[in-house]
């Protein structure tokens, strides 16, 4: 019997998810022994044409990382969907939109304007910006289209499972792959890691009082960390609204959580969840005072939706 086929692909991402796969070290050899990787442009020599030649559903599983930012990324994702039995959305960008999803606070024009015309070092009197089709001395050149909006993978294709994290940690990847290989997958649509908030796994949890009451939020650089719960120190930590599975790596480096694993099950979106968690720890009920305390949070939208703007209820700035 032939081995099951697998594909790995990346969209708008940084390569960190690829590093995460390489960081599986010896385990990757077990994976390679168990499946045939038919497509992994970063490491293996197969082409889109080879994928097109496969029967629909012939690939057992495709792992797709990165957000959808260009036309090309959408096309390849659709092709892989057609050819795959399972599609796993891999990493924060694919799962929730990720850091590149912060671009949804702006539109394509303003992004191009800044990068190609305005920056301090750019000299561009003719205001040239990249085009999908262009001509240079009679040579025709093409580029994929840059979309106005960043999308998570599940907005362009149906996704079966999610492996969260920026990047996913080796243990999370390993457990998900074992579940897949042993055919022990949970219900479709599941996020393949524990359904618990980070706070429950945090080594500082004993210092988190039942009710944290805050008069003012501090910036990370303003205080010397005392080793206690960050919320107790008045520093915003997204632990209460974030799924665990990361090994609390940021906390161990004495830095607060920024939510890359996304929300737990039954939470519609991270942003409003953290907002309600934060609101509940403010030490006053007076509306004016609450407002003043909230104003001490720098860039709340960019902080609460750091990894999840494109997948949230309001997924972009409209005006």
């Amino acid at each position: 019997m032939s081995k099951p086929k697998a594909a790995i692909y990346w969209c708008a991402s940084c390569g960190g998810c690829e590093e995460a796969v390489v960081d599986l070290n010896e385990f990757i050899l077990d994976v390679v022994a168990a499946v045939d990787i038919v497509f992994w442009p970063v490491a293996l020599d197969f082409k889109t044409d080879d994928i097109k030649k496969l029967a629909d559903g012939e690939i057992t599983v495709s792992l797709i990382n990165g957000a959808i930012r260009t036309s090309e990324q959408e096309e390849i994702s659709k092709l892989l969907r057609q050819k795959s039995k399972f599609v796993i959305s891999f990493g924060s960008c694919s799962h929730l939109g990720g850091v590149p999803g912060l671009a949804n606070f702006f539109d394509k024009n303003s992004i191009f304007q800044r990068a190609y015309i305005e920056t301090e070092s750019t000299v561009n009197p003719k205001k040239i910006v990249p085009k999908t089709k262009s001509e240079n001395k009679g040579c025709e050149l093409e580029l994929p289209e840059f979309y106005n909006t960043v999308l998570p993978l599940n907005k362009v294709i149906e996704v079966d499972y999610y492996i969260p994290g920026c990047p996913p940690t080796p243990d999370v990847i390993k457990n998900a792959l074992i579940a897949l290989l042993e055919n022990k997958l949970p219900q479709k649509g599941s996020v393949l890691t524990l359904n618990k908030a980070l706070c429950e796994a945090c080594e500082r949890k004993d210092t988190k009082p039942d009710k944290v009451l805050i008069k003012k939020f501090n910036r990370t650089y303003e205080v010397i960390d005392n080793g206690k719960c960050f919320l107790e120190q008045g520093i915003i930590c997204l632990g209460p609204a974030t799924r665990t599975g990361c090994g609390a790596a940021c906390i161990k480096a004495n830095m607060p959580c920024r939510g890359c694993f996304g929300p737990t099950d039954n939470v519609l979106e991270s942003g409003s969840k953290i907002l309600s968690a934060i609101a509940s720890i403010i030490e006053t009920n007076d509306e004016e005072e609450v407002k003043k305390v909230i104003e001490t949070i720098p860039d709340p939208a960019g902080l609460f939706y750091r990894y999840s703007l494109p997948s949230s209820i309001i997924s972009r700035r409209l005006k």
Partner: protein
Amino acid sequence: MKKVITIDPITRLEGHGKISIFLDDSGNVENAFFQVPEFRGFEKFCEGRAAEEMPRITSKICGVCPTAHHMASTKTLDSLFKVEPTSTAKKVRELVYNLFMFEDHLLHFFFLGGPDFLVGPEAPKEERNVIGVIKKFGVEIGKKVIQMRKDTRKVMAELMGRPTDPIFGMPGGISKGITNELKNFILKFSDEMIEFAKFVIKTFHSVVLENESYKKMILNDAYKIVTHYMGLVDENNFVNFYDGKIRVVSSKGKEIAKFPVEKYYDYIAENVEEWSYIKFPYLKSIGWKGFIDGDDSGIYRVAPLARLNVADGMATELANQEYKKMFDILEHKPVHHTLAYHWARLIEVLYAAERVKELISDKEITSDNIRNIPKNIPDEGIGVVEAPRGTLIHHYKTDENGILKKVNLIVATVNNSAAICLSIKKAAESLIKNGQVSDGILNKVEMAFRAYDPCFACATHSFPGEMPLIVEIYDKKKNLIKTIKRL
């Protein structure tokens, strides 16, 4: 009839780097384009963010060199908040940074660019990769390479939080110091690093430099372009990755600029082309003269060879010996032979290993005085490091609350973008004559850009020889007349 050759090294669909070569009516190279069809727009969407979050946001620009962005960003915060990091914090940062350079450069040598030489540029493609290297040099070497990578990343994770996306950088210092236990481990490990670097350089000498045909290839005009060079130097004009002044040396070896990074926009400008999402930096004093090389062109190069070209030497003993050897053997300074990047990279590996030992041996390294709290109102900050792939600059402007208003980034590989274009054109010109294209072109054109270890190749972890390559030849009406595939 005009023909188009599209070389799509990371496959056409991948889209992180694409090469198009155009032939004239007689079938010789008329023009070559290195296109980057990928763009995310960090310079815009960082606006509105809290400045102190930038080291954790910009590390997401690149998953292969997140440490470079994290460090450039952290240094930009020092400048923005006008706070001097404690002496220990500076040393720990530089220590981590050298561990990172050591690991990243070795990855290139064994996995990416090195196999071309170690196994051979014309070896069968299925051998021309890290597996081929292991086969040729023995499993023990393979194990050692993997072990060194694993241990280096383990130490980096201990120090910075995570190896893939560091989190320890703060204005005025770092969030986590070094324990005595970790210090002892790194001290022992640094000896292993130095020994390993010496071994790698010895291998490079015996396999590459003592092989006449390789030496000829390095010196071949197909892999030579004449440009200016840029890199960071310390107060003695020695190479430094973490800090110093930016020095620019002309194609003739003359210092033409030396400036603190705060003045970068007086010296560096960027050109925009409508056929690529990447920009093309050049020296402002000379101006953008198009895609041409030579002393009159504003195009400059960065990264290992450039750093060695602009410096007067290396700050550590063994690396400096090797530095002198390189310029003695190649006879000229600056060296314009692109393939010499590989050699320069290994000299930097040795320097990084020696520098780690120096820093970890410092008495202050385990001090818990790791942060100074910023007291000043932020407004503008600029920071620089030497990333593995060249000079990397971050520039932030904020309001009085440290909320970002403007962000500018000059990313390492971008500095080399025009030079990469030239190198590809030059290699193609010397290989494609009268419309004759063969499979042999593929790896040799790849070698012209792989020497730079450009981020689009590095970030994809493409293994040389396994890198998918398609050459498609079209007539002027875009009818496909020939396809060469290396599968």
